[in-house]
């Protein structure tokens, strides 16, 4: 690896197979010639950033798409691309992200879905203008979120589907601008009542978890208008909720807004039964690959 780096400083030679090098390099050269601010490098078989010489000096680019490659390491220097607004790293082999990404001044959309992230770096929540964060299909849980994760007040969409959350931290209530929250197929046992503070939420996906009850505060949200989507199937709901769900989502919402439900919910909490068992088999997830 060190040999390669030294070689790059002079003339790009030999140590990387020629075919791969040319594929990525061709796109980069073209973009540089055309002054194209959007760089598409999806599905180019790239496994390291060394295969894309000069990329980190293309300060003019606003979008960088590297999905469907084999990248394992993201160099901290990627944050040099100060004009980048959209960074797509979907479906790679990334196990950790550099903290420098969170300093990128214009980054609005970050997609690191379908990777092998076991944790996020300390201070990851410092993004100044991040609006859409896609962490779908990784190995994340509440245990390995950084302390400032929920300080990203500019966030309007947060995708956490196909991860390993059992509890959602109550700090979720701080994401005042959140419109979309996706928690499909985690291991969630309960939701915090602070979710009721997300007044702008119009998409909530909690299907395929281990949820039995919903906090009554969810009744504060407008999840039944024709501009809202609420998906809650495939959970071991308590019978009354399950029955309402058979009739329709709006019946569930009407029910959890009732006094009857509030009573049932409090009784259910004080009973404190054992959590339902994990049913999702995640052993085949490609994010588990080593």
């Amino acid at each position, binding site marked *: 690896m060190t040999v390669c780096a030294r070689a790059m400083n002079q003339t790009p030679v030999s140590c990387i197979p020629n075919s791969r090098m040319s594929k990525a390099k061709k796109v980069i050269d073209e973009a540089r010639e055309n002054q194209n601010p*959007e760089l*598409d490098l*999806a*599905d180019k078989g790239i496994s390291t950033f060394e295969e894309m010489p000069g990329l980190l000096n293309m300060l003019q680019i606003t*979008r960088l*798409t590297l*999905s*469907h490659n084999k990248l394992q390491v993201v160099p901290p220097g990627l944050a040099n691309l100060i004009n980048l607004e*959209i960074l*797509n790293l*979907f*479906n790679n082999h990334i196990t950790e992200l550099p903290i420098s990404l969170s300093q990128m001044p214009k980054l*609005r*959309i970050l*997609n690191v*879905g*379908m990777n092998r992230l076991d944790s996020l770096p300390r201070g990851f929540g410092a993004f100044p203008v991040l*609006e859409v964060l*896609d962490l*779908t*299909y990784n190995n994340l849980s509440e245990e390995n979120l950084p302390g400032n994760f929920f300080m990203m007040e500019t966030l*309007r*969409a947060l*995708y956490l*589907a*196909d991860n390993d959350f059992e509890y959602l931290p109550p700090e979720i209530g701080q994401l005042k601008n959140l419109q*979309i929250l*996706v928690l*499909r*197929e985690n291991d969630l046992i309960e939701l915090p009542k602070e979710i009721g503070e997300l007044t702008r939420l*119009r*998409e909530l*996906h909690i*299907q*395929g978890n281990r949820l039995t009850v919903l906090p009554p505060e969810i009744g504060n949200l407008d999840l039944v208008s024709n*501009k*809202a*989507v609420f*998906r809650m*199937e*495939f959970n071991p709901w308590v019978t009354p909720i399950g029955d309402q769900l058979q009739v329709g989502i709006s019946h569930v919402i009407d029910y959890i807004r009732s006094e009857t439900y509030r009573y049932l919910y409090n009784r259910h909490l004080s009973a404190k039964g054992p959590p339902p068992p994990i049913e999702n088999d995640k052993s*085949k*997830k*490609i994010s588990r690959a080593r």
Partner: protein
Amino acid sequence: MARNSDTLPFPTSISIQSLDHSKLYNRRAQSRENLVEKEITNDSNSNQSTFVYDYEELAEWKGFDKPPKLPPRNFKNAYCDTNDLKKQTTNKTGVTGMSLDDMFCSRCREGFEPHEKIVNSRGELWHPQCFVCAQCFRPFPEGIFYEFEGRKYCEHDFHVLFAPCCGKCGEFVIGRVIKAMNANWHPGCFRCEECSGELAETGFMKCQGRALCHTCNARIKAGALGKHICHQCHGIIDDKPLRFRGEVYHPYHFNCTACGIELNADAREVRSRPGFAANEMNELYCLRCHDKMGIPICGACRRPIEERVVTALGKHWHVEHFVCAKCEKPFLGHRHYEKKGLAYCETHYHQLFGNLCFVCNQVIAGDVFTALNKAWCVHHFACAFCDQKMNQKTKFFEFDLKPACKKCYEKFPQELKRRMRRMYDLNPKKIPA
């Protein structure tokens, strides 16, 4: 006293130094603070009492209703007395029956020669040359002296040493001294800082570090409480004021221009000439007469509109009161969007009713691409996974309500696709095409 006579030589041999060098002066300067008390303990009936400064502590009024009783003043103390310096009177009074051998001077402790003049003051005897001012060692002009702590001073030195200075004019205060606001004042110098009326007889109130008379204090207090002062009668307006031609009044000073009824605070000021900016021509009408005049009423503030009228949503509005229902900023002629009887600015209409592009988060200017509970600018609609542009004809898959192009969907791992299929099979109606 004895010390003085021992240590002080005759005035002629004294070397002149500045006043600061005098221990006596310094000590007395300190004791000036205690002056008031000491003088009060003096016997006011004594002929010799030499009361020149009639200190009068003027306390601030604490209550609002009645001025406190002023402390009684003793005018007798305000004057000094001349002393009888004649030897004859001395013989007649204090020293009858005493032989010359038993008498000695209070200052130098020497005896008296036969036929020598003797000064008798309050039973004490002096050589004429010893009966002098303790400060300048000169005889007392016209025999007038002032006594303090057993020492006698001529009028000039007594003032220099002990007279209080007026906080306003800086001159000595002789006679009646007003002590107030941590300073001394001539009675004529201590005045209300608002109206300049004398405060010595009426008392004062302290208001933000200023001494004010009762009336001015009440007015300022009322102003601070947010109450208005009637421009006509200058009284405090306790209820709602009536605004008229730029001033505030008690409403009952006016009558309706049309029907003549006495007005209340609901009365309306009407521009006699529409569009005429100055308000000298305005007239007042009672609410009933005003309503008959057909002036449009603002749908927001319910007040008449006398300038530009905005008509929207079936109502009239003041230009500045026709605002976005979300951000409450006035449209000021900019385009607005109506929805369910409310008006919105462009940004908030789209934010609330969903025409912001999912990618750029901006109001969609041209055609809107709507799918998956979201909207896109036509040129921003792309696969969420490879960012490949898509159009109306492109087939795409739904994944967490994000669009996935066919190529990306095929790259999804088998186990994920299996789960997606299972969910779809069990719940087909929930997933939009």
